[in-house]
C-alpha cells in the first residue's frame, strides 16, 4: 500500500502548532537533544557519516531500489543531458570511456577507466587523445560494443539543434571538418580529422588546440556508446540502449522509469560496478514535501535530485535525533552568486562594485539560501571542491561592513550612493529571498535596489543573459548560480569567467570582462601539469574577486537524507550527492 505509510513522527511538531497557534515547541530549537527516541532500532551511523566513509557497506544483491524526483530532468539520453544527477545516474545503464571512482569524498573525484581499459593517452602535446576499449563489452541486445559506437555517440550529440541540452565541449574542441553539420544532415562527411577508429577497440580524438583535462570530456555521458542502427534522434530517449548492468524496462516520460538487469552485461568486463539491486524504480513528478516524508518513512530510498530536503523537513529533522543521524550535509561544487554588471555606470567603476560586496549582509544571504545547513558563506567564486582552490580573504563575510562600503562609495565618487536594478528568477524563492536581503542591506549604505523577477525559462535568454536588455534597463546586479561540470577549474570556471564566450543572448558569464583573466584561462588549459594548471585557476578566482565582478553568496550545501535500508551509501566528491553507481538495498 504505497501511500498509507505511518505518519512521519516529526510532523507532530508542526501540527502541534497548527492546533491553535501557540508559541514554543516544534521547528526551532536547533540542537535540542532528545535521546529518548534514538533507542528504537535506527541506524547506528551518525550524521555526516556518508561524507568520508561508506555507510552500511554490503555486497548483498537483490531487491528494488526506489528513487524519486520532483521534476523530470532534461533527458535520459546520454547525449542530451546536462544534470549532475543524470550524469551520476546514467552510469547504471551506460558506460562512458572513463568515469569517476565510486568512492566517498575526495576519492570520488578521481577518474578511473570504465569502457576504456585505461585513462586517455595524450600525444602531440595534448592535442590527440587515445583510448582502448575493453574486450567483450556488449549492448543489451548482445551486439558487441566497438569504438565505432563510441565515435557515433560523440558525433551524434554534436547536433545541438536536435540535442539542445547537452554540453558543447566536443563541439568547441574537436577538430571537425568544416563541411560537417551533423550525423543526420551530412552522414557521409569523413570525420577522421576529429575522431579516428583505427580498429574496433581503439578510438582517437583530435583537438583544435591542446587540452590537458581531456579525460574529463571522456567522462561525459556523451561517450556512452550508441548503436547507429538504434539511434532515433531525439526519440532515442524513449529507450536508450544499455551498455551498463541495467537496461530500461519501461520509460514513461515525466512519470516513471523502471530498469532491470541487463543480461548481456558481464561483471568480468566491469571492475567498478557492484550492480546490487535487481531493479530500479524511478518515479518523477513527486510532490516535494511528500517525497521527503516518504524517504523518512522508508517508502523511498533516494531523492534523485540530490540537492537536499525541503525547508519544511529541515526544521523537523533537526528536532529528531534519529532523523539527524540519517543525514549528510556535503558542500557541493555549486556557487550561488550575484553578478555585478559593469555595463552601466556607476558600476563600471570597480570601487562602486566593491561597495556592493562590502555592504552586503553575507549572513543574510546565507540565510536566504537556507542557512548554514544549505550553504557555506562563499569567499570566492570557485567552490572548495575544485582543484586549485585556495581560501580568499578579500572581503568581510559578516553582516555587512557599512564603513568600508561608504569608503568605497567615496572612492568611486558616489558618496551618497546610487540606484540600480537587480534581477532574480521569480520561480526561485531562495533567489528572491536573497535579493530581498541584499536590498535591505544595501539600503543602509545608500544604494537603492529595484528588484525584478523573471521566469527561469527566459532568465538568461531574454533578460539577465542578454546584454542588450541589461544595458537598456540599468541592470546592475543579476542573481546567478553555477555548478561544476567536473571538479577542475576548467570544469567550473570556463563558461562563467571567459569574456570571449559572451554572445547576444543566453549568456551565463554576465559580468566578468577582463583580458587578464582570459589570457590566464588559455595558460591554464594548455598547461600539461595538472597541479600547475590548478594553481592558475586559483589565481583566476582571486582576480575575479579583486575585480569585484561577482558577489559570491554561498557554496551550496544540501541536507541529504539516507533512505531506510540502503547499503553502500556515500557522498561522491564528483557530484556531492550520493553515488548512485553501487547503492544496494537490504
Amino acid at each position, binding site marked *: 500500500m504505497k*501511500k498509507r505509510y505511518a505518519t512521519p513522527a516529526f510532523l507532530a511538531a508542526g501540527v502541534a502548532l497548527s492546533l491553535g497557534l501557540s508559541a514554543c515547541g516544534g521547528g526551532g530549537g536547533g540542537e535540542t537533544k532528545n535521546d529518548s527516541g534514538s533507542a528504537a532500532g535506527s541506524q547506528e551511523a551518525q550524521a555526516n557519516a556518508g561524507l568520508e566513509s561508506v555507510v552500511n557497506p554490503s555486497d548483498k544483491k537483490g531487491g528494488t531500489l526506489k528513487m524519486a524526483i520532483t521534476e523530470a530532468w532534461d533527458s535520459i539520453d546520454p547525449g542530451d543531458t546536462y544534470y549532475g544527477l543524470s550524469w551520476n545516474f546514467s552510469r547504471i545503464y551506460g558506460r562512458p570511456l572513463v568515469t569517476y571512482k565510486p568512492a566517498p569524498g575526495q576519492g570520488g573525484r578521481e577518474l578511473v577507466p570504465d569502457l576504456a581499459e585505461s585513462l586517455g593517452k595524450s600525444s602531440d602535446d595534448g592535442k590527440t587523445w587515445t583510448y582502448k576499449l575493453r574486450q567483450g563489452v556488449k549492448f543489451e541486445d548482445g551486439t558487441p560494443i566497438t569504438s565505432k559506437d563510441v565515435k557515433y555517440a560523440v558525433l551524434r550529440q554534436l547536433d545541438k539543434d536536435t*540535442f539542445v541540452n547537452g*554540453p558543447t565541449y566536443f563541439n568547441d574542441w574537436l577538430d571537425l571538418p568544416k563541411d560537417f553539420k551533423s550525423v543526420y544532415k551530412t552522414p557521409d562527411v569523413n570525420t577522421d580529422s576529429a575522431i579516428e577508429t583505427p580498429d574496433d577497440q581503439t578510438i582517437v580524438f583530435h583537438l583544435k588546440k591542446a587540452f590537458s583535462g581531456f579525460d574529463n570530456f571522456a567522462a561525459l555521458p556523451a561517450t556512452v556508446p550508441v548503436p547507429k542502427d538504434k539511434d532515433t534522434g*531525439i526519440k532515442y530517449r524513449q529507450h536508450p540502449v544499455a551498455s551498463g548492468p541495467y537496461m530500461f524496462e519501461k520509460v514513461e516520460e515525466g512519470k516513471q522509469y523502471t530498469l532491470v538487469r541487463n543480461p548481456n552485461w558481464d561483471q568480468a568486463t566491469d571492475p567498478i560496478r557492484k550492480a546490487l539491486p535487481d531493479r530500479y524504480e524511478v518515479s518523477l513528478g513527486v510532490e516535494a514535501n511528500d517525497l521527503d516524508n516518504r524517504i523518512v518513512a522508508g517508502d523511498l530510498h533516494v531523492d534523485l535530485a540530490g540537492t537536499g530536503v525541503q525547508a519544511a523537513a529541515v526544521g523537523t529533522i533537526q528536532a529528531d535525533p534519529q532523523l539527524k543521524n540519517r543525514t549528510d550535509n556535503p558542500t557541493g561544487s555549486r556557487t550561488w552568486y550575484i553578478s555585478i554588471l559593469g555595463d552601466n555606470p556607476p558600476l563600471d567603476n570597480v570601487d562602486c562594485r566593491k561597495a556592493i560586496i562590502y555592504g552586503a549582509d553575507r549572513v543574510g544571504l546565507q540565510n536566504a539560501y537556507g542557512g548554514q545547513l544549505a550553504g557555506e558563506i562563499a569567499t570566492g567564486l570557485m567552490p572548495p571542491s575544485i582543484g586549485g582552490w585556495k581560501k580568499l580573504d578579500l572581503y568581510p563575510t559578516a553582516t555587512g561592513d557599512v564603513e568600508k562600503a561608504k569608503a568605497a562609495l567615496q572612492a568611486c565618487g558616489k558618496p551618497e550612493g546610487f540606484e540600480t536594478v537587480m534581477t532574480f528568477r521569480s520561480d526561485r524563492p531562495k533567489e528572491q529571498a536573497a535579493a530581498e536581503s541584499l536590498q535591505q542591506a544595501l539600503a543602509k549604505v545608500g544604494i537603492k535596489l529595484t528588484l525584478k523577477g523573471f521566469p527561469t525559462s527566459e532568465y538568461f535568454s531574454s533578460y539577465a543573459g542578454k546584454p542588450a536588455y541589461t544595458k537598456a534597463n540599468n541592470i546592475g546586479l543579476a542573481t546567478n548560480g553555477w555548478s561544476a561540470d567536473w571538479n577542475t577549474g576548467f570544469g567550473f570556471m570556463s563558461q562563467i569567467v571567459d569574456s570571449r564566450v559572451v554572445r547576444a543572448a543566453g549568456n*551565463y558569464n554576465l559580468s566578468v570582462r577582463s583580458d587578464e583573466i582570459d589570457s590566464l584561462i588559455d595558460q591554464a588549459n594548455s598547461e600539461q601539469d595538472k597541479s600547475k594548471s590548478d594553481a592558475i585557476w586559483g589565481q583566476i578566482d582571486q582576480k575575479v574577486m579583486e575585480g569585484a565582478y561577482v558577489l559570491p553568496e554561498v557554496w551550496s550545501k544540501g541536507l541529504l537524507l539516507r533512505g531506510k535500508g540502503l547499503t553502500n551509501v556515500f557522498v561522491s566528491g564528483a557530484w556531492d550527492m550520493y553515488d548512485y553507481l553501487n547503492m544496494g538495498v537490504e
Partner: protein
Amino acid sequence: MVSYIIRRLIAAVLMLVVVSIVTFSIFFVIPRLAGVTTIDFASRYVGSKGASAETVAAIADKLGFNDPLVVQYGRWIKGIVLGAEYDTGASVEHCPAPCLGYSFITKTPVWPELLDRLPVTVSLAIGASIIWLIAGVATGVVSALRRGSFFDRAAMGVALAGVSLPIFFTGIICLVFFSYRFGITAPGGSYTAITENPGEWAYDLILPWITLAFLYAASYARLTRAGMLETMGEDYIRTARAKGLPESKVIVKHGLRGALTPILTIFGLDLGLLLGGAVLTESTFSLPGLGKYAVQAIQSNDLPKIMGVVLLVTLFVVLANLIVDLLYAVVDPRVRLG
C-alpha cells in the same frame, strides 16, 4: 432542431477560431511588439548551459519562428486539420491530426500529452461535481423549505463561508491535516488511473474532490435555495396545492422541476470550465491534470502546449454550452430550438 444544432456547431467552430487567434496573438504577436526577437524565442528552448548563436538561430529557423506570423498560424491550424511533420534529427516523424503542435522542450507532440492529462482532470471534475450536486442541491432544498430555521441559517452561513474561501487555502490546510498529519488521505501529487486500481484512484482523489466540491456545493446550495424559494412562490405551486396535491409531490414534481432548470445551465458551464482544468485545485494538490499542465506550460513558455491546452479548454466550454442548451430544450417545453 437539427438545423439549430448545426448552426450552433458552426458558431462553436468560429468561436474556437477566434479564441485560437487571440491565444496566438497573445503569445506570438504581443511579445514581438514588446521587442522579443525570434532568437529569444528559440533560446528559451536551449538547454541549461546554452549553445552557440548559430545553433540558436538554427533552432529558430527549424521551429519556423522566422516565418510571417500568418504563415505560422496557418501552419498550426493546418496541423490540427491535416496533421504535421516534425524532425527528430534522425528522421521526420508524422504527427497525425489533430496535431496541436510539437513541444520542442519535452520533445513530444502536444495532443497525446493532453490526452494523457485529460483523465486526471475528468476524474477530478466528475467526482467533485457529483458530490457537490448531491450535497449542494439537497442542502439548498431543505434550507428553502425550512426557511429561517436553524438549519437554514447554519447551512447558508457555512455556504457563504464556503464561497468565500480560496481553494488554495482550504486545499493546503486539508493536505497538512488529513494527509501529512493523520495520513488518512493521499498526499499531494498522487494519482492512480481508475483502470489501474479503482480503490487507489478514489483514495488519491477523495481529498481534492471534497475540497473542490465544498466550494461549489456552497454556491449550489445558495442557488438551489434561491431557486426553490422563487419557484415555491410561483402561482402554479399554489395551483398544485389547490388541487390537493400532497406537499411532498408539490415540492418534488412541481417545485424542484422548476427550480433545477436554471441550475442545469450553471452546472453545464461550471463543468465545462472545470474540465478545462481546475488550475488552482490541481496546482494545490499538484495533480497532473490539464490545469497544472497549462500552468507549467506557461511557466516554461512552451508555446505549442499553451496553445493546445487553451484550445482544448475552450472546446470543453463551448461543448458544455451546446449540450446545456439542448438539454434545456428537453426540460423546458417553452424553449423551442430553431
